[in-house]
């Protein structure tokens, strides 16, 4: 299964499960993640959701292998990812990203959609899209909501990646733990959140989403379209292929 779900006393953990590919977001994985999120939304048993990645890395971003020649599939992957982020954001319970190793591009996008992100000092996070001639348009609305428009602008235009320590300073992640303890820190936070009233947490989250426009899928979907357009340009095709062959 590309996404595994485990349940423990109301804490639902969704684990991206392609460790050999550093959990890169293939169409299969994105579809499985969407389906898992829809299930969580429908069955309403979750009090907290943890999003995690199997293996050494949280998520290496979009899996572009095999789809550079296939704009239709590429567009679909970006749209499905956009839909998944909207569903994740609008779950009625708090969500936590448990980020070890690397969270890059779309992977970092998933981390900032969650209400909390936990990582470690030497983790690698960020949006190197522009380095490859690709645009992070699809995740931009979420990053703006997480760290503010000015920081998001500087971060997305500069590309590259930053350390967990730097990510904490700019609000991209909310707390750091020693690398081996990121998962248990996420569980501890989930347990602490369980102390809050389910309804109160749900109302607060819905209100925060209302205030920052998170329920509005339009900007995210238009971002997906824009990202899909940019990746078809010669600039992007040349740079991505060079990276894949390099």
């Amino acid at each position, binding site marked *: 299964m590309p996404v595994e779900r485990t349940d423990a006393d109301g804490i639902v953990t969704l684990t991206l499960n392609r460790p050999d590919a550093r959990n890169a977001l293939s169409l299969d994985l994105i579809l499985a993640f969407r389906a898992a999120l829809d299930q969580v939304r429908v069955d309403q048993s979750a009090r907290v959701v943890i999003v995690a990645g199997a293996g050494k890395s949280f998520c290496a971003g979009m899996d572009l292998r095999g789809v550079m020649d296939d704009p239709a599939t590429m567009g679909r992957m970006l749209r499905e990812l956009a839909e998944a982020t909207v569903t994740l954001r609008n779950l009625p319970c708090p969500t936590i990203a448990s980020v070890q190793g690397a969270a890059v591009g779309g992977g970092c996008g998933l981390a900032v959609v969650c209400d909390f992100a936990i990582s470690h000092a030497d983790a690698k996070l960020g949006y190197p*899209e522009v380095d490859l*001639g690709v*645009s992070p348009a699809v995740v931009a609305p979420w990053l*703006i909501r997480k760290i*503010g*428009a*000015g920081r998001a602008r*500087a971060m997305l235009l500069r590309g590259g990646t930053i350390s967990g320590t730097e990510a904490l300073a700019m609000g991209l992640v909310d707390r750091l733990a020693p690398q081996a303890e990121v998962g248990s820190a996420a569980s501890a936070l989930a347990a602490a959140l369980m102390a809050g009233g389910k309804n109160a947490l749900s109302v607060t989250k819905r209100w925060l989403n209302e205030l920052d426009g998170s329920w509005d899928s339009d900007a995210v979907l238009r971002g997906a379209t824009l990202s899909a357009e940019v990746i078809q*340009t010669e600039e992007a095709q040349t740079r991505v292929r060079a990276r894949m062959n390099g």
Partner: protein
Amino acid sequence: MSDAAVDDTPSLRVDGLGTAVVTITLARPASRNAMGLQFFEAFDEALDAVANASTSAHVVLLRAEGRAFCAGFDLGACAADPRLAARLVERLSELSQRVRSMPAVVVASVQGPALAGGCALVASCDIVIATTSARFGYPVHRIGISPAVSLPILARSIGGGAARTLALGGELIDGARAQAIGLVHELVEPEAALPERTQALVESLAAKGPGALRATKKWLNELDRTTDATTAGAAAHASMGTALTEECHAMIARVWER
């Protein structure tokens, strides 16, 4: 009233036209790169030249000579002409919008004070690299002018809380505080390292995909609505109104005479 010494050196210097990186240097250190009508005219000409260059720039670097990045409006000229401050507010609004809207990524490299109009100009850039000893702020209520003109970009960039205290309080903040609130994105110490670190940043940007940078900047402008002309116009109008009052003329005269 003290005589404003006429400084007829060019306000700006433009280097690298027709290449990926164009550098605009504020070049009147003796007047702390103060903004007068000539400053804005020279800046417009520089941006026209960038827009019309044979090869379009991917990155525009804005830097300043001397110990101050930019001290804000030329108060000597404003004291001599009571209608000038409002005109400068209008020009500042136009320039900020133009910088924000241009396709290239704009980097500000800041040492020393970047105050009032100078701070507004910095806030309109996409990426700000600054020294720990740089100073930012809007000490303009003391000359009877509202910094409203800068607020549409400032508040959306750094958030409402920080923008409120910076604009209303009038206090100056240093580079470290400016980084903490998100006005500065890369902090440099010591000051002597600024040119080298700026060069490294600009070169790294120039190596990115230029089409991706342009598309991303355009999308960010749409998402954060910082290029919305109606809001920019209304904010400029609010500041211009304050600059045309008797209160403002008297306060500028008092500050300038001191």
